[in-house]
Every structure is written in structure tokens, then in C-alpha cells.
């Protein structure tokens, strides 16, 4: 581990050296950025998203975020199964960060000395430097600040990528989240007409690989490091023991079910940093879906199920038309029901008989 860490730290130094050599243009750009307005945003835990403008007011700015990395045990199902989680800001997934195209996202990443591992962050929205991973590797007790320009709009995954075998292990331990870069004038339909949302929810889907003992029961480990060897064996089988939304089976059901009203338009951002998935809203649709998550492409319309590639985030916009309970699932139904990937919406409003009506209740078959 130390060798790997040293190697990675070495690569960081190299990258820094390169940056110094090319300091001319970098300095000029930095000077331009220095004059931009700055905005400090406090992040909120998913499925909620910090307040933001859908269409940008004014020109580009620097948006500042801070995230603390927390290594801590988390319960991931009703049976009390424990994950030695690694988290951005304490939650799985990490919070959604929203900026506009042309803005600069400036993140201060803190790795408190209560942690045991080195971490970093790779932004799929960023350009160069391994998505920022090469410039952000920090040991426990360190912090780092990275700025990148949001050059293209869309929803993008971020995740920990501290080198080699550490990468998938950190990701399936919970270290991923998403960034949403909105077009400056907001979202548009396939004809370029503006579309707006009344609510936004961010759902991060995770595949977990918890080792079992000889009797088939999930094992517990004192710390993340203790589980590494066993966990990698399960990971190599490629069959997750859990597929869940927001870190835990049932995390978005019951009291924590997402809420909406008939007539409201909801944007659902869905990320999966590691493995393909296929969200489906039972009883609803995707009115406008950016499957790949990139807003420069026209949205697909009237989708029943959409595909989120592992390592990406997508966005689906839907206006609820009927009240009731909606299940939002990964439509591999085995993963939804047996492995945990089910969330609920409770939707209030007036029922529309035109859309659906039970003409005759169940009764004995007429002979």
C-alpha cells in the first residue's frame, strides 16, 4: 500500500512539475478566472439537491464546494449487513453538485486524519489530469483544492480513483457521486424549447460486494482495510450481493419516499459509477430522457425504461399525471426486488379516470 501511495504521490509531483513548465498560459487563465464572481455552495445529502438556478443569471462564475471524506461503517439492508463505507461528505452517493456550462467548479476535498486511506476524486466532467485524480490524491490529515472548467453540459459521475486495484474497491465501497452542468439557458426539449422542473431528485445506484462466511452469512470487518482481500474475491465474480439506491436497500421508501404532486415536473438524475443499469418508473414514463446525460443532445421522448451505462449519469424529466404510489426501480427486477434497487414516489393529486379506470372489480369468472 505504501509503495502504491508513494508511486501515486510521485505521479502527482510529476504532474505538478509539468504544470509549472507550462506556466505561461496557465497563469493567464488563472488571472482571468480570478476576476470572476465567486459563489459558495453548501452541499446537501441525496436524494436532495442544493438550491440552484435552472437558467444561469449573468456570466460564468467560480462555484465553490467543500467535501469531507468519511470512512465509516454503514448498514446497507434491513438485515443489518454492514459495509465499511468510504464516502464523500458522509453519504452514498456523494452530493450532486450543480453548475452551469462555462462556470468553474472549485472543490476543496478534505481527508480528515480519522480516516485510514488515501483518496482523490476523478470528475468525468473535467478535462485532463485523470479528471482531477492526478491532482487530488490526499492522505489522512490533508486537504486539496481543485478547480476545473465545466466545458460541456450534462450529468457526469465523479468517483475516487486512487490507483490500480484501489479504484474499483473505493468505488464499490461508496465513493461516487455526480455533477450536473446545466446549459446556461437551462434544459431544452428536442426542438430547443425550454423545459423546467419543479423538483429534482438525485439517485445514486451502487453495487456492493459483501463477503460471506462459511455459513453464507455476511461478514463484518473492523475497518475497510480488513475487508479488502475478501471483497476483491467477491468483486471478481462480478455478481453483486446488493444493488441499492442511495446506499441502502429501502433508503428511499416509507418515510423517506420521494414526494411529488400531480402536475409537477420532476427531474431525476441517476448515476451508476461502476455497472450498467436501467431505471424504470412503474406507472409513469420518461417524458424527456437524456440517457447519456449530455444536454447538448436532444432528449429521447416517451421512454418506458432508460439505460444508464456504468460510469455515467443520466437525467429523466417527467410530469406526474396521476396520484398514487410509484415505484422507481432498476428494471432488472431481480436486482430491484431481491438485491434492493427500489425507490418509491408518493404522488398527491386528483385521479384522472380518462387515463385509467377499473371498469369492473375482481369477481368470479362469468360462466
Amino acid at each position, binding site marked *: 500500500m505504501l509503495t502504491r501511495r508513494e508511486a501515486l504521490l510521485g505521479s502527482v509531483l510529476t504532474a505538478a512539475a509539468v504544470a509549472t513548465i507550462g506556466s505561461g498560459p496557465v497563469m493567464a487563465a488563472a488571472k482571468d478566472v480570478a476576476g470572476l464572481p465567486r459563489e459558495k455552495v453548501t452541499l446537501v445529502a441525496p436524494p436532495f439537491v442544493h438550491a440552484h438556478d435552472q437558467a444561469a443569471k449573468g456570466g460564468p462564475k467560480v462555484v465553490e464546494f467543500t467535501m469531507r471524506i468519511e470512512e465509516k461503517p454503514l448498514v446497507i439492508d434491513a438485515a443489518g449487513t454492514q459495509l465499511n463505507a468510504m464516502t464523500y461528505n458522509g453519504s452514498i452517493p456523494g452530493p450532486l453538485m450543480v453548475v452551469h456550462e462555462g462556470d468553474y467548479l472549485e472543490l476543496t476535498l478534505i481527508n480528515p486524519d480519522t480516516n485510514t486511506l488515501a483518496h482523490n476524486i476523478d470528475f468525468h466532467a473535467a478535462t485532463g489530469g485523470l479528471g482531477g485524480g492526478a491532482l487530488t490524491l490526499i492522505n489522512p490529515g490533508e486537504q486539496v483544492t481543485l478547480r476545473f472548467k465545466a466545458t460541456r453540459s450534462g450529468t457526469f459521475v465523479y468517483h475516487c480513483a486512487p490507483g490500480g486495484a484501489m479504484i474499483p474497491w473505493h468505488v464499490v465501497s461508496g465513493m461516487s457521486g455526480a455533477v450536473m452542468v446545466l446549459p446556461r439557458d437551462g434544459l431544452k426539449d428536442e426542438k430547443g424549447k425550454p423545459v423546467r422542473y419543479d423538483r429534482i431528485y438525485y439517485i445514486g445506484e451502487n453495487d456492493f460486494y459483501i463477503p460471506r462466511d462459511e455459513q453464507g*452469512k455476511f461478514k463484518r470487518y473492523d475497518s475497510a482495510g480488513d475487508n479488502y482481500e475478501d471483497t476483491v474475491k467477491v468483486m471478481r465474480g462480478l455478481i453483486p450481493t446488493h444493488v441499492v439506491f442511495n446506499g441502502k436497500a429501502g433508503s428511499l421508501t416509507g418515510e423517506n419516499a420521494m414526494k411529488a404532486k400531480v402536475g409537477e415536473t420532476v427531474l431525476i438524475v441517476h448515476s451508476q459509477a461502476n455497472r450498467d443499469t436501467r431505471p424504470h418508473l412503474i406507472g409513469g414514463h420518461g417524458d424527456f430522457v437524456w440517457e447519456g446525460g449530455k444536454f447538448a443532445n436532444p432528449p429521447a421522448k416517451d421512454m418506458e425504461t432508460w439505460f444508464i451505462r456504468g460510469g455515467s449519469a443520466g437525467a429523466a424529466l417527467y410530469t406526474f399525471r396521476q396520484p398514487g404510489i410509484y415505484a422507481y426501480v432498476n428494471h432488472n427486477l431481480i436486482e430491484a426486488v431481491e438485491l434492493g434497487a427500489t425507490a418509491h414516489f408518493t404522488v398527491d393529486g386528483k385521479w384522472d379516470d380518462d387515463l385509467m379506470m377499473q371498469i369492473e372489480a375482481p*369477481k368470479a369468472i362469468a360462466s
Partner: protein
Amino acid sequence: MSFDPVFTFGTIAAAALIGLGVSNAIDGTPSRFRVPPAAAELVTLKPGSFEHPQPGEFLRDNHPVPTPMTKETIHTPLEIMKFQVTASDYDRCVSDGACKPADSLLVGNVPVTGVSFLDAQAYANWLSAKTGETWRLPTDVEWAYAAGERFRADIEAGDGDPADPARRWLTQYRNESALGRKADPEPRPLGAFGANSKGVADIAGNVWEWTSTCYAHVTIAGDRIAGSLSNCGVHVVEGFHRTYMSNFIRDGKSGGCAVGTPPDNLGFRLVHERGGFLRAAVRRLGLT
């Protein structure tokens, strides 16, 4: 523990053992069958009447309504196991080759869990054969009678609104959420959830129990039942709340409660049929 209206029969176990001796003599098989602990400790409930919300789904004028209350009567003393059948009790049936191993890996003095309706029936049949008496699952009414003040029935959903079916779905979902019951999957030793006022232990703890009552769709017209269609591939399961499970389901988490909290575990307790021994003896003597 209150002895009224219940009287706990310390003598029942003794009577059962004496009965065993007789039945063995009749059989000519002098096996030393030790009565499983759960079967040895019964609670006898006095006959009585009570108001009971019926199990199943009820429709009036084509829309769902809360399950109607009916007056139910237990006509003869009801002998029911004080505790749920334990893992070690069940294991003896497995050793005899009459029961399939339960899904739960727990052993000893904890309720057997990870068992289906079919498993519970197999155990009742095995115990009846072994003791020469009649053991069976309680009906939903019997279970409710034994559960006393701990009986909850289905999660309330209120009257269906013919103009808006969603209202009932939302009400039920919110009522269930509001109960705030957290998953509690680890079975505890017998008696951990205490006894109710009738002296029956562990009712509505974290092990739901199979009953012999079938799931039904019932149509109500006026104040009478106009039609009923039952599906005995699904049985009523009782516990913290009432639910309905397919006969082969062993893990409630994947067997029912489409939305909301599923049973933590599935287990059972049995009713001892009074006079069962006599009937069995009569049967063995070829007098029927």
C-alpha cells in the same frame, strides 16, 4: 401474569405424556418420543366471543372497503402453544426426514424461521403422527383470539374513494410508514417479546406466524356477503400486522407486502386439538 380469562394448564403436558404412553401401547411401538418443549407448554383459552376484522380484500360497489368486523365465537377451550415452534423442535422433524431444513441457520431455543406454510404443515403432520394427537395451524380467528390486545390486523387504508383509487393506496402507505417500525431481522430466544394478557408469548414480535386461513376476495352487498372467492395457494400470515403470503414462501421480505414493511421472519405455532388423542386412539382401534 394474569390467570383470567385464561388458565394455563400445567397439567396439559402431563396429560399429553400419559396419552403418549397409551398410544404407544396401542401402536405396539415403544419409542420414547420426547414431546418438543413448545408442544409441552400450552395455553388454554376459555371459550368466548369477540369482534374480529375479517382477513382478505373486501369490495363494495366495485371499490375496496375496510375489512368488516364480525362476531366470532370460540366454542370450546382453545389449546395453543405458548411459544412459537423452536429451531430445535423443528430440527427433530428434519432429522426424522419429515421436514425440509429451514432457511434459518439458527439453532436451539429460538423460534424456527425461514419456513413456509408447507413446512409448517409438514411439521404439524409429523408432530401429530409422533404424538398420536392432532396438532394443526391456528385459523386466523383462533390466532387473533390468542393474540388478544396485540392483534392489529391489516394496515388501515380506510374507505376506497370510487373516484380516486390512489387515495387509499397513499393512506395505507402513509399509515404503514407512520408506524415507524424498523426492520428487526434477528430472531430472539423464546419469550423475548413477553407474554400478552392471555399468557401467550412473543405475539407480534419479529416472527410472523402462518395460519390455516386462505386468502379471499369478498364482495359485500348491503350488510351481507354477496360472493367470495378464496385462493388457498396464499395463506393469512399474522404478526405485527396481517399480511398474505404464497404457501411456498419462506422469506417474507420477498413474498408479499408489495409496498411497505414486509415480515421480518416467518415461523409458526400450533393448536392442539382437544380430544385429538381420543379421536386418534379411536382411529387406531379401527372404530371409525
